């Protein structure tokens, strides 16, 4: 390829990427920088910020504080831990629901596949709030679930699911399950079934075939789905607000309260940084695992 042509194609690439780059710079990098800066500022008495370097926002969460205005409170770490735990539970439940379903759908005749994928995306047509209130109607003591269970004489008194961790997890799974399903489905659909045949033919039991062939080849979808379910469930505040109430406080709700209720922007920003840090740690682990796998392939290529 001639030099001028290469320059031209690079120019074209820049031009094509410009809108996205500009959008991300204005609407992602800029607000994020504001949050980073705010997390190290002092909260103003009547909201707003004082422009002093102030690290006690993180101190309140992680174990040091100035002791006069701010106090270290382990409750924050505890809320944080609970949020991570609930997000991981959500990921796990989504995974258990989606993995077998993806195999089932991938074996349907084509027109049924299309229909099923349409069903998966159907909830997006209705408002999230409306759908969550529907869950309130289902889960509350006099709600649909308890009426049915009592009608079947399976329980004698209504079970109180509303405003528990279980209710929040049900809600999170409900809204995030499509984000797990689609990446897993994509990798399952790509799986060449003749590899499964070959594995059985070569003497592998069904379990061995699953561990050695099916799982490794669908792992990218599993990991991708897990990440895009984990991130929004960790930071979610709508679901815990509606289904968890005041009893199940998650980190997302805490941040929301700091910004809108307590008007303590710096502390809210510090909490947000903590969430982002956690997500980054998980992403880092994922990328490292991925690049290690690729390095293995590179090594094989040159060797």
């Amino acid at each position, binding site marked *: 390829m001639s030099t001028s042509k290469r320059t031209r194609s690079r120019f074209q690439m820049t031009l094509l990427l410009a809108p996205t780059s500009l959008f991300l710079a204005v609407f992602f990098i800029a607000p994020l920088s504001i949050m980073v800066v705010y997390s190290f500022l002092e909260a103003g008495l009547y909201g707003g910020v004082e422009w002093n370097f102030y690290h006690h926002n993180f101190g309140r969460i992680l174990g040091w504080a100035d002791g006069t205005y701010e106090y270290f409170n382990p409750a924050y770490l505890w809320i944080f831990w609970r949020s991570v735990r609930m997000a991981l539970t959500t990921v796990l439940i989504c995974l258990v629901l989606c993995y077998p379903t993806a195999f089932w759908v991938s074996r349907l*005749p084509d027109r049924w596949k299309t229909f099923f994928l349409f069903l998966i995306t159907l909830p997006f047509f209705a408002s999230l709030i409306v759908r969550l209130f529907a869950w309130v109607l289902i889960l509350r003591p006099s709600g649909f679930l308890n009426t049915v269970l009592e009608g079947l004489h399976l329980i004698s008194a209504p079970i109180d699911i509303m405003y528990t961790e279980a209710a929040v997890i049900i809600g999170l799974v409900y809204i995030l399950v499509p984000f797990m399903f689609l990446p897993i489905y994509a990798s399952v659909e790509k799986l060449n079934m003749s590899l499964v045949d070959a594995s059985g033919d070569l*003497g*592998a039991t069904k379990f061995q075939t699953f561990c050695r062939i099916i799982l490794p080849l669908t792992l990218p979808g599993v990991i991708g789905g897990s990440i895009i379910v984990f991130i929004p469930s960790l930071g979610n505040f709508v679901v815990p607000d509606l289904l968890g109430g005041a009893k199940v406080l998650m980190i997302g709700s805490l941040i929301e309260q700091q910004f809108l209720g307590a008007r303590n922007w710096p502390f809210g920003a510090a909490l947000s940084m903590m969430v982002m840090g956690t997500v980054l740690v998980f992403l880092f682990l994922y990328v490292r695992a991925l690049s290690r796998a690729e390095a293995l392939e590179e090594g094989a*290529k040159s060797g």
Partner: protein
Amino acid sequence: MPGAESSDQLRAREMSVQLQLVEAFKPAIDIQMTDSDNIDHFLEIRDASKTFMTPEGESFRALDSISLPVRNNEFVTLLGPSGCGKTTLLRTISGLEELDHGEITIDGRSMIGIPPHRRPVNTVFQNYALFPHLSVGDNVGYSLDVGRVARAERDDRVGQALELVGLEGMERRRPRQLSGGQQQRVALARAIISNPKLLLLDEPLSALDRGLRQAMQIELKNIQSELGISFVFVTHDQEEALTMSDRVVVMRGGQIEQVGTPTEVYDHPSTTFVAEFIGESNIFHGTVRRNGSGEMEMRLGENQVVRLREDATHDIDVADSSVLIRPEHLLVPDSGHDLERENYGALDVTLRQTVFLGADFQLICELADGTTIKAIVRDTARRNISSLKPGDRVRLYYWLDSPYLIPGTGTQ
């Protein structure tokens, strides 16, 4: 990459040298001779039937009462057009499909209800089905790994298997870094490493280009006879079937049309389908009569007759008999020469087109009634054929033994 392919071919030729290695892969059949020495047929398929449901809800009979015995150390080819059931038959032998009806026995043991991983059979799949996330070594060693063979022995045998197929030292490569021919060899090494007693091959050569395919045909045949195991080979390529097989099984619509050696099915096809599917053919349909002088004849139209030797078993004076004359059995003598009437018959045709094939010429001709006749003739001295032009009247001769009256036609 053309360089890679030609080195493949070179390797294919070197292969015969390495065949002594094959000893290591001979299955331990001899040990079991006590209970199998009176069983002549290593694989036996009896009355096998299989029906599929299409997504539209119609049932499709893929196998219709197939019976086929395969001997020890035999190379059997299942040949037929797509949808004839040959691949389904292969999959029922490997256990990937269950029969609806009938039975398959391997080495005297019934395979009913036995899952694929417990059958003494391995398969080379159509597109090789190599595991993309595993290295070549791990692909080849897969059956040993799932069988928990000790590491040192496993590595040894992987090395030997790769050496056998001419890929020594490639353990750490990935399948997608290999050429088509190399992938094919990996698939073969993977299938024979666990010493199967029967190897199934599902169109393994169809993705290779012509030169490599021909080299692999010979190589496969060599490996088979050296290993001393039975091969069941599926193909839709009649040339492949004729080249490699001890016996050819021609299938159509879930049934067996004919079983025979390559020369049997080529020279004496049992049906017009087999005659047309294998090789080039001129088939004449009509009524066969005795002409009183120890010959039979089929009248094609005005003054055109196909003469053939007396066949006492065939019914005469019935419509719709079929007579086959292979194109290479038609001759064009030097101009001015006629061949004697006692031994040769003749057809008067109009030449439509001459196609130069290299060694031979193909003449595409027409009878007066418009029937196309193909002839393949040799003219190494470039005398008689080269001078022919489209539109010329040509007399095509055939030896009286050449026309073959297809049995089973004309009987109603």
